[in-house]
């Protein structure tokens, strides 16, 4: 069991995790200040005979300081986060040479359509497989997400990628896998009674392995 985040399996996993760590440090400092402060005050200023409270209505300088520091921190965090947001999800974020795979989400399965030998979707050599996402390592992959019925969400924890699949919309989500292996994909938006089992296997292959798999899968998928 991990006590932290899962294996970093994509190019932006490092960035997402880095941001997560940065936020942990910032919020950690605030957490310690507040909680330790509270415990200290609770102990130090508990009622004692003869003790009187200090009659004051506040301190403007304190207000300015503890408004400004959080405000500046939040703005800085926003600017940094936005940089990565645009990189990962921005309208021009999908790399030009990304390998296309279409995923059609349906209660309760993922219909994965591969472009076949010609590498292009929408051609006769495309083939569809249920619940198996195979991708080559080290290459950007763009998933064209669609939904048959309700809102589902495409989530691969090790890639740190998540994108809702919305009926009536075609949405792109891209990632680049970095570690060969077998992982899992889960549905991350409640979609009905089978939501908890709407999972798929994700296999990251080396390029040679991938070509071999592609040939074999294309054959098996054809009637």
């Amino acid at each position, binding site marked *: 069991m991990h006590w932290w985040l899962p294996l970093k399996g994509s190019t932006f996993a490092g960035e997402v995790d880095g941001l997560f760590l940065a936020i942990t440090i910032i919020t950690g400092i605030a957490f310690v200040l507040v909680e330790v402060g509270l415990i200290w005050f609770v102990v130090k200023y508990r009622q004692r005979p003869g003790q009187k409270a200090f009659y004051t209505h506040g301190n403007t300088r304190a207000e300015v300081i503890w408004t400004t520091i959080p405000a500046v921190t939040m703005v800085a965090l926003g600017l940094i986060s936005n940089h990565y947001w645009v990189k990962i999800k921005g309208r021009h974020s999908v790399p030009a040479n990304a390998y296309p795979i279409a995923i059609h989400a349906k209660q309760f*399965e993922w219909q994965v359509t591969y472009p076949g030998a010609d590498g292009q979707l929408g051609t006769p050599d495309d083939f569809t*497989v*249920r*619940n*198996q996402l195979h991708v080559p390592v080290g290459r950007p992959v763009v998933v064209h997400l669609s939904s048959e019925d309700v809102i589902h969400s495409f989530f691969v924890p090790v890639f740190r990628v998540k994108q809702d699949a919305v009926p009536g919309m075609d949405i792109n989500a891209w990632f680049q896998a970095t570690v060969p292996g077998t992982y899992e994909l889960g549905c991350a938006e409640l979609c009905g*009674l*089978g939501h908890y*089992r709407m999972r*798929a296997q994700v296999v990251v292959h080396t390029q040679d392995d991938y070509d071999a798999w592609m040939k074999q899968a294309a054959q098996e998928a054809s*009637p």
Partner: protein
Amino acid sequence: MRKLGAVAATGAVLALALAAWTRQPSPPAQGGGTISGKVKFTGTKPAMPKIDMTEEPKCKAKYQGVPTEETVVVNANGTLANVFVYVKSGLPGSYTAPAPAGPVTLDQDGCRYHPHVLGIQVGQGLAIKNSDGILHNIKAKAKANRPFNISQPSVMTSTKTFDKPEVMVPLECNVHGWMHAWLGVLPHPFFGVSGADGSFTLKGLPPGTYTIEAWHERYGAQTASVTVAGSETKTADFSFAAK
């Protein structure tokens, strides 16, 4: 004497009338008439897509080879299986058939429905069994009857009934998208499904002229008109052509 005769005659007439009034439709004499036949298939047998059960190891393990979809099952002798044959019309208006006490079982085994096509009487129980022990849901997309969608996450049996005739109610599992079955709900027991030898038999029919229908999920429906009397057997064959 004449008075007695009159009374006796009246009584006899009354008795006959009473008997006629309370007469049940005569039970099929010695089992009644039979309609049987074969469903032939002409043309090239279509290849059925393979089912990849890799994501469901418990089901995949139940097969030696790779299972295929069951949309079109052509038997070795050139006949078509899974054709639902039933009496569409022709029964007397007064005919009633009580629903059998015992249920019809639909089993989910190896991530497939067994049988693929089945019939049931109105009011009869459909015992839906999950022999796989993994999550199946049964979605009945009925139109005349109340649709339902229930899950069975483990080995269990759920029973449902249908209170209106409907040909055919599609059944599907959404966890395993290849799982489909077809259910015919009828107000009488005169239906059957063509099996591994392509034959069907409808037994116990009261005398009359019937329209029987043969329904297939891909090739549509065909009808035939058959008259039976007493306990004779009549043949009605059907033929579906590859599209």
